[in-house]
């Protein structure tokens, strides 16, 4: 398992053509885990520096966007002498293939990790179709 933590770098977001940012802050793409269950989709994102008040989740049609704003804490009267990572906001967009029951979306942030539960709408739940032997 130890090798799993090697070579992990924060990924800076790519600027899409025609969609330049209005802020000068950097934008990063958070690493995510996505798990699909029968009734729900679970999304976990690493967003260090983000808390429950600074994360925005929007679902428009089937486009899910997570955005986390980071207010960098800079130690007063200190000079930065070595920098291995950058600080900025997080954004990532997903296209969902299933209908989501937007009333029941749950989100929590703990220690900089966002956890989202996206329950599938009734119609989208997989139904098991029994196949009869002839």
């Amino acid at each position: 398992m130890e090798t799993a933590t090697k070579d992990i770098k924060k990924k800076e977001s790519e600027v899409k053509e025609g969609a330049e940012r209005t802020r000068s802050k950097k934008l990063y793409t958070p690493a995510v885990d996505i798990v699909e269950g029968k009734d729900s989709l679970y999304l976990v994102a690493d967003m260090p520096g983000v808390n429950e008040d600074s994360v925005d989740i929007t679902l428009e049609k089937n486009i899910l966007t997570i955005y986390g704003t980071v207010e960098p804490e800079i130690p007063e009267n200190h000079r930065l002498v070595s920098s291995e990572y950058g600080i900025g906001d997080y954004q990532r967009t997903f296209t969902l293939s299933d209908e989501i029951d937007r009333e029941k979306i749950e989100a929590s942030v703990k220690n900089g990790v966002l956890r989202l539960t996206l329950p599938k709408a009734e119609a989208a739940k997989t139904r098991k179709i029994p196949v009869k032997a002839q």
Partner: protein
Amino acid sequence: MLFSTNRNWFWDPWEEFEQMRRGVWGDGARRSSEFPSVNTWVSSDDSVVTTEIPGVDPENIDISVTGRTVTLRGSRKADDIPEDLSFHRRERWSGDFSKAIELPFNIEAGKVSARFKDGVLYITLPRAEAEKPRKIEIKSS
């Protein structure tokens, strides 16, 4: 060329060190690839080391200090998911990490403090009393 020529009035060993390092490795090689990435801030009293380790239980972070070196150790377990579920994407790291960061001065080990907020660890490492820069008063005779 080991010593900088544009030496300042107040000699700063860290700057010296950085310049030497830049001279030897070139600017591109300054970033260590070892996880976790850290940023180091320095003042005349102390150094603040910050690192982003989201989702780590603060109880599982181990900070030890010897001389000029601070060592960070910790781990994050992968999420357990029920057997009938499957990962669509799995990008988040898991496992153990260990990293040693060397500062340009000896650390007052007894006064080190750390804070963990929103997945970001802040460690304040005071300089050893004997190594603090001293202001020399010049007496007029």
